[in-house]
Every structure is written in C-alpha cells, then in structure tokens.
C-alpha cells in the first residue's frame, strides 16, 4: 500500500490502548494490537465473538478516537447494491426528463445529465470511499454473517481496492482508504476469501478484573460493592452450560436494572426478578433459577 499521511498519531500499541481507555473502552493488549495494525496497515479488521462482548463498540470508539465520521452498514438477508452502495433517484430522473423534453435538449446531453452525480443516492459503502471526504471515515460493516454470499463476494472487490465502479459515471476511488471494521456473530461462516483479506480478532468474554473495570468505566456512579458482586456472579453464570451466556452488554444492562431498584448489593429476591436482563432463554432461567443460584450468589457475595 502506498504511503499516505498518517490518519492517526498513534505510534505504539500503548497509545491505542490508552486512547481507547479514554473513550471508556477497556481493551486487552491483544485487541489493541489488532486495532493498531488495522490502523497502520489499513486492512479491514474482522471481529468475531459472542453477542454482547463489544464488537460494534470498537468501531464507535475508533471513530471517536480518530475524530471522524462513523458510517455504519447494518447487514441483513437480501442486502444488495441498491441499499448498500448506490441507487438512482428515479423520481427525480423522471421529472427531469419531462423538464428537458419541454426545453428541447438533445438525447446525448440528456443521457449525461440524467445519470449525473446529482441524481445519485449514495449508500453507506459509497459514502465511505467518497473522495469528497475530508478525513477518511470509519466504516462499520455490522453482522456480515446476516448478508448473503453474493454480497460478501461484492465486498471482496471493494475491500481489496477501495473503489467502486458505477457504469454511468465511472470509478469512484477513496483518496485514503477508510478504516473498516467488520463484525460477525457466526450464524453463517464467513468465506475464507474474505477472511484472508482481513485482520482477525476473536473477542472473548472479559476476565473478572477486566469486566469490573469495564463496569466502572461505563457506569461511573455504580457502588463498588455491587459492581464486584455482579461481575463475580456473571462470571459464575458463564461457567454454567447455558444456551446463551450473558455478554458484557447484559452485565451492564443488569446493573442498571438493579440500580433502578435501588439495590446496593446482590439479594436473592431482586436478583431472581431481574434475571431476565441476563438470561434470554427460558431454559437457561430454569437451569440457573434453582439451588445453583443460591450457591452462586453466596460465592459472589464472598468476593466482596
């Protein structure tokens, strides 16, 4: 890749880690390394992990760190060029044709005008590589696994050259490639060809200490005792064989629920009532709800 003026002034991994911390994102050194490399080498970063471990958050934090735009493309089944890249504004085109007919302009001129940039509706991918961007944005391609293989194949092309060809206009190329973050929940395997073009990082559930610092960073007002107990309890939960283990997002959610109930530490009754913030399947609630929960609570309380 050609040398361009650095978008970031993050020269070391520690810098990145510190900057992310400043945005209240607690990153491992390994994650910070991956982000650092993605910035330096301008390679897309493919993030995988259980839901709720902060994959999407990385992109948001990056945009804030770099003080640039975040362009988000939420993938879904059936996403195609007209919703992801560009679409012509047909209504305006039709109106314009009528106007021109009244004015009597010849066909050649007409064609050029009708398919001009002013009739183009830019969708996220085109926005991300638009040469008009003053600063290259962060492009978040969220939950890529939801899209179809066809779209993935299209992305391949985009991610290797950062250029899009519109037949009527020509090739649009980014002055500077955007920072690309791709996330996947693995409901479908991402194709090897795409993986090869990306840096890969698997975000795991945080350790007890890390989760505690995340909670403190995210919810500054939380009582320390409650935070500690909650983290310990959630960690216990993750060791149980659950269909869907709670992520960090659920932990934060649960704390807000407990705070809303004015709890200062974990007590069995309220815990049982708010378990729905952590566990999203009835089977899991039943599994945990019995004797196990009491033991887990005792253990969690013992920590503080």
């Amino acid at each position: 890749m050609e040398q361009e003026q650095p978008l970031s002034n993050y020269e070391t991994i520690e810098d990145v880690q510190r900057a992310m911390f400043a945005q209240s994102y607690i990153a491992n050194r390994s994650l910070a390394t991956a982000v650092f490399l993605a910035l330096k080498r301008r390679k897309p970063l493919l993030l995988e992990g259980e839901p709720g471990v902060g994959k999407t958050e990385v992109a948001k934090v990056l945009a804030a760190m770099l003080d640039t735009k975040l362009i988000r493309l939420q993938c879904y089944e059936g996403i195609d060029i007209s919703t992801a890249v560009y679409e012509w504004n047909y209504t305006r085109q039709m109106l314009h044709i009528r106007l021109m007919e009244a004015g009597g302009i010849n066909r050649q001129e007409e064609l050029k005008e009708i398919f001009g940039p002013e009739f183009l509706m830019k969708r996220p991918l085109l926005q991300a590589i638009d040469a008009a961007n003053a600063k290259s944005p962060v492009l978040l391609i969220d939950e890529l696994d939801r899209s179809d293989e066809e779209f993935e194949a299209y992305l391949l092309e985009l991610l290797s050259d950062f250029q899009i060809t519109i037949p009527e206009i020509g090739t649009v190329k980014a002055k500077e490639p955007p920072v690309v973050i791709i996330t996947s929940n693995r409901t479908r395997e991402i194709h090897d060809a795409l993986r090869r073009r990306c840096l890969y990082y698997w975000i795991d559930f945080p350790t007890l200490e890390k989760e505690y610092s995340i909670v403190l960073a995210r919810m500054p007002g939380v009582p320390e005792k409650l935070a500690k107990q909650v983290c310990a309890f959630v960690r216990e939960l993750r060791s149980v064989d659950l269909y869907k283990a709670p992520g960090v997002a659920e932990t934060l959610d649960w704390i807000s629920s407990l705070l809303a109930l004015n709890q200062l530490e974990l007590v069995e009754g309220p815990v049982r009532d708010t378990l729905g913030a952590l566990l999203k399947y009835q089977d899991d609630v039943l599994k945990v709800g019995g004797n196990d929960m009491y033991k887990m609570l005792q253990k969690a309380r013992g920590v503080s």
Partner: protein
Amino acid sequence: MSEMLQENGHYFATHPLSEIELERGERLLYRLTEFGHILWESGIDVGPRKILDLSETLNYIDITNKEDFYHTLKSSLLAHHEQETIFDQLFLYFWYMRDSQDKKADNPKGAAKRDERQMRLPPSERKRLAEHMNANEQQRKDLRAEMRQSERPRRANEQIDKEDDEDDANPQGTAYSAIEMLRRKDFESFTWEEVQEAKKLMAEMRWHLGMRPTHRKAPSRKGSYPDMRRIVRRNLKYGAEILELTWRETKMKPRPVVIICDISGSMSLYSRLLLHFIHTISNGLMNVEAFVFGTRLTRITRQLKKRDVDDAVRDVSKSVQDWSGGTRIGDALHYFNHHWARRVLGRGAVVLVISDGWDRGEASVLQVEMDRLQHSCHRLIWLNPLLGSPDYRPLTIGMKTALPYIDNFLPAHNLDSLIDLGKLLQSIDDSRPMRSAAAQRKAIDGWTKTSAI
C-alpha cells in the same frame, strides 16, 4: 460342530456362572446390540433388524438356561456354517470371559485397560481376530465379498422360504428386475458388490433439494417487483413516457441440509450409505453440513467435500473412540444445539437425523434437545432403518421421547426408501410444518399404528 457343542455343554456344566445375564429389557437389548456389533466387526452379517428379531424371539425361551440362550442366539444370528467357529468363540468371549475378567479388575494385574481386555481371546483366535482387525478395509471387504460369493446360491435358496423377502427369491431375473430387487432389499443384507451397485445407482439419480425464496431479487421477464433501474434506461428513448416495463423476481436457492448421523455399532452400515446418498443429492454444493455421533458429535462437512465418502466415514470411525459404547443421542444433540445450531441452521435448514433411537443417555436430555432442535430448523426429519420392517414399533425410550418433535418419520433401509426421501426433500416448500399438540398426537398415532399391523 457337534464337538463344539459338547465342548460348550461341558463348559456350561462346569461353569455355572450365576450372574450371567439375568438382565432383561433395555439392558439386555443393549448387550445384544453390542454383541451384534462384535459379530458384525468379525464379518458376520448382523444388522439391527436381526437383533430386534432376536430380542422378540428371546421372549419365548427361558433365558436363564444358558444352553437355550446360546442356541437361540446362534440360530437367530447365524446364517452360514462356515461362521460357526468364530461365532462360538465370540459368544464364549463376550458372554462369559469378558465378564469374569471384569470381575477380576480389582487385582493389579487385571487392571489393564478395558480395550486390551476386549482382545483377550484364545491365542489362536486372538491372532486371527487381530489379523482381521488390522487388515485394511479393502482386504476386509474382499474377504467378506469372497465369503458371500461362495455362499450366494445357497443363500438365495434359503430365502425363498422367507415371506418378507420375496424379491430376493429370483436369482435369475432380468437386469431390470435385478435393479428392482436391489431397490427393495434391506441394506442390512447387502453384499459388498451390491453396496457398490447401490452407490452407482445413487450416482445416476438426479435430485433437486427443496427451494427457498431468498430476500434477493434478480431481473426476470415476469415478476412482482418493477426493476426501476432498467425501466428508466429502457424508456429514455420514448422521452418522459414509460412504455416498457421490466421486472425483478425473488431469487430461489436450495435449502441448506444438515445431516446428523448415528454411526454407533450396527447403524454404521446404514449411515455410510446414507452419507453416500447425501453426497449425491448435494452434488458438491456448499449447503450440506454433516455430523456424525456415537457418544460424541463430530463435524465431517469438510471431509465430505474434499474426498470420497468412504474415506471420510472411515476417518471418522477411526477418530471416534467409543464405537460399541452405545449411543447418547441427547448429549450429541445438546452439543449440536449449543455449538453448531446457530452456525448452520440459519436460512430455513432441513435437518435429517439418522438413528435407530436406541439411546443410552437420559430421556429428559433428549427431550429438551429435540424440542430445541425442532424449533431452530425448518423441517426435522428422522430416518430410522428399523421402520422398514413391517412389525417394528417405535417403542424404545429414546425413540418414544423423540417422536413428538419430529416432522417426518421415515424408513431408510433400502434404496426405495431413499428415493422417497429424495422426493420429500424435493417437495419441501415454504409452508411451516404442523407442530401443534394435536397435529403431533395425530402423527405419532399414525407412526405407531401403521407399523403395529
């Protein structure tokens, strides 16, 4: 032969082993299956249907009488004189020696691993068995084919008496009727050549998996959605009037198929052929996922894509440690649901479970996991080779537990039933299968009754 009997008679008299198999019910059935598997491994043709027959037969004799037990097993399981010696050896070993060795397990010398103990046959026989086990697959197949070749004429004659196998009765049929015959014959009684023939037949069949509408749209001559991009282009020449319309239509794609195969013991033969079948219908497409289980679940999708199915299945059976250790369907499905379901069951997948339903695990686990599995796929089809037998009833605990969560319950014991399966796969459309409690009850009634006649 008579010597052998006398010897055995003597053995019975001098070793009144009291605890031998006063077991009944599930436990006995399990032991019988295990025994059947050992026989199968040694080249004696014993499939699940035979074992099931046998367990029925055993109701008529006093199984505490060792001699009766021995003779019943022998007459039910054995079809060839040549195999008597090895049968006798295996019988003694399995029902007597192995157990008495287990008892000695307390003393340090007997604390050898279970696997080693299993191999402790009389020296001559041990050598033979070891040779047999070590022989590579090709040799073994050749051996088996050879054995059968020599016995085939006699066998055909014998089968005239069997009323349920009327197709096999005509050894001098035309080529067409030979294929017909093959199509209806139970895989269990296939010879090596017939297996090859069946594979060839499968390869010639052409299937289409059921299609599902995707959310993508493609240009088409007729369709439900206007294709604006092309409309504007086409109609430029007419000025502002729109005279030509172009359309887009929803794109169709074959449904993903997930196949979960029981390869424990006697199921292995069926599963092997079914994997072949699946390999054929998928035509190497991307959307077939395959898993096998004995007590643990292994994904074999990649092997299935890269190589010959035979190789893949052999590889898997090598890596699965507990071949005759019984089946834990519930645990296997639990693992599948937790680790794979979210990754492979998207987009309206059709799940095929292939098993005889003899579950060694807990019924409650199986129930929960079947429920979850059914709710995370578009269609859940259970294939049970035993269902091909007219007097089979799905009454084992495992099968009974699973039945309420099955959308289709099909036999898979011969080529004809596979063809039916192919047709079913082809016909699967967008409509949701009936899963209300009433519909379930009705379906279960149907499955239990038709086979009860």
